[in-house]
């Protein structure tokens, strides 16, 4: 058994990344950004005493004549098209409330949810009563942001990735490819991407550290898959053997995961945590390089401060080499 006790060590300021020419202009609330009145003010700023003052702590971004301050640590702010991983907190009348690390709970309407068996029909009263059978409190889902309400609350829907476009079942005017609803039997077309998540590990990080990419679902070559939610919830799970075509995916696979897969998943989890502690952006390449850099160490040692620094330093080097 392992037991390690140590004295705390003061945090060192993160050294400047090698080869950075432009220094980030960091501000805290109340700092003057500029006294030039020719700029348009964006998010995170306000005008006071003929000066542009920052209202959040973050870095200043300038696009032509627009100045805004991007906060370094903030709750998730929803944007249409983002992939998020969320946890069901409440089951309400025709919708679920989902916790996505934003200022308000997100909403998943019953009509936005894929029915098991892939049926396409109007949701009836029986569906409403059976809602808890689909998703309960505590369940994890992966979904896409459909709309953002005026108060900032986010509306989600589950997406069909097979076809590359959303299956918005509440909107009959949209055409859907190859879906010919039949009234006599269950449709057998390949099911929409299973949105309810089965066995795996959830890691919660700050949303500002997840890099925006074309796709957020990655099957890493090391043997596990990862969903990088834009809201900072990262889901690591064993790669499914084959794309299951089961009805709706509401029956989670509860068979024991093999030890080799578990080791990969635990290692990935620790690597992600070390990247986050060192404030590095998370995307598939950085996670993969960090995983490879961590291979010589034992899984539980990755979280020790000195080994964490070493691994992330190596990852940073490799990423810079790859860029330059």
């Amino acid at each position, binding site marked *: *058994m*392992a*037991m*390690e*006790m*140590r*004295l*705390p*060590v*003061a*945090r060192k300021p993160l050294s400047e990344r090698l080869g950075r020419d432009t220094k980030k202009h960091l501000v805290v609330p109340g700092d003057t950004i500029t006294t030039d009145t020719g700029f348009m003010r964006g998010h995170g700023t306000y005008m006071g005493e003929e000066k542009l003052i920052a209202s959040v702590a973050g870095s200043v971004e300038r696009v032509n004549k627009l100045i805004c301050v991007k906060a370094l640590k903030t709750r998730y702010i929803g944007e249409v098209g983002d992939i998020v991983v969320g*946890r069901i*907190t409440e089951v309400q009348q025709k919708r679920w409330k989902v916790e996505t690390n934003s200022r308000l709970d997100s909403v998943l309407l019953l009509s936005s949810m894929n029915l098991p068996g892939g049926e396409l029909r109007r949701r009836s009263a029986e569906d409403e009563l059976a809602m808890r059978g689909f998703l309960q*409190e*505590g*369940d*994890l889902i992966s979904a896409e942001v459909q709309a953002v309400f005026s108060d900032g609350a986010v509306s989600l829907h589950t997406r069909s990735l097979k076809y590359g476009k959303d299956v918005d079942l509440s909107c009959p005017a949209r055409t859907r490819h190859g879906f010919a609803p039949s009234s006599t039997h269950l449709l057998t077309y390949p099911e929409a991407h299973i949105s309810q*998540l*089965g*066995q*795996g*590990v*959830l890691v919660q990080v700050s949303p500002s550290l997840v890099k925006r990419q074309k796709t957020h679902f990655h099957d890493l070559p090391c043997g596990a898959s990862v969903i990088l939610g834009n809201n900072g919830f990262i889901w690591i799970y064993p790669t499914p053997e084959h794309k299951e075509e089961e009805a709706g995916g509401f029956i*989670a*696979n*509860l068979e*024991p*995961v093999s*030890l080799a897969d*578990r*080791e990969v998943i*635990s*290692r990935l*989890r*620790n690597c992600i945590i070390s990247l986050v502690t060192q404030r590095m952006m998370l995307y598939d390449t950085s996670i993969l390089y960090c995983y490879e850099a961590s291979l010589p160490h*034992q*899984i*539980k040692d*990755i*979280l*020790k*401060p000195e080994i964490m620094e070493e691994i992330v330093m190596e990852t940073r080097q490799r990423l810079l080499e790859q860029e330059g």
Partner: protein
Amino acid sequence: MASVTLSEAEKVYIVHGVQEDLRVDGRGCEDYRCVEVETDVVSNTSGSARVKLGHTDILVGVKAEMGTPKLEKPNEGYLEFFVDCSASATPEFEGRGGDDLGTEIANTLYRIFNNKSSVDLKTLCISPREHCWVLYVDVLLLECGGNLFDAISIAVKAALFNTRVRVLEDEEGSKDIELSDDPYDCIRLSVENVPCIVTLCKIGYRHVVDATLQEEACSLASLLVSVTSKGVVTCMRKVGKGSLDPESIFEMMETGKRVGKVLHASLQSVVHKEESLGPKRQKVGFLG
């Protein structure tokens, strides 16, 4: 207690992992997370300690005040415990939400110190039947990340080790009590026999040490074992709504004794190392 909600599949994953001795963060069933201990963090106390165990953050302050000895133990001082679960640890502790957990932890601390050998209370006596030192041990929960009892007991032991109580001289026959002239003349408590709590959570068919919040959500029953550095069990308590059968209780107790001895050895070496660094030690405190 702060809790997280997990989906059924996540719980199944954790339980199967424990069966195979590989937990979510790569630890084995008997491994602790990395612990950071620092003493003498609060300047206006007689002794203090801060312990960080993963996401759990505990601050303990010990203040020595003069009081009258208890009637049944006229030659001894005593300890008073108070646990404050602050709302900054978790929103559940807002208002009076943390009081229940606080009293539960305080009562556990009273129980584990309620024997002759944990702390030599006779050193706290000033004059029999009249004056004694009362050590008020205040525990503050700053952040809750699972395994509270272990972290609190480690912090209490480190704080008691750090406690320095001024020596008082009372002249024979008179009622006057004076401080000794030397400001550095202090009584130090011997913390050799102070016990530490080891929490063993039963998950599936096995038990784990130092459970995180997610693992605690998967466990129905836990056993708190209070162990001294020599491996002597001073007190045992079961928490949780599940049941434990006698064989598993015995196994968990044996694990607790084994793990407890290693825990004490590590803590001893860390606090002695910190003391040997002397006043030159760079204090990290809360802003480091």
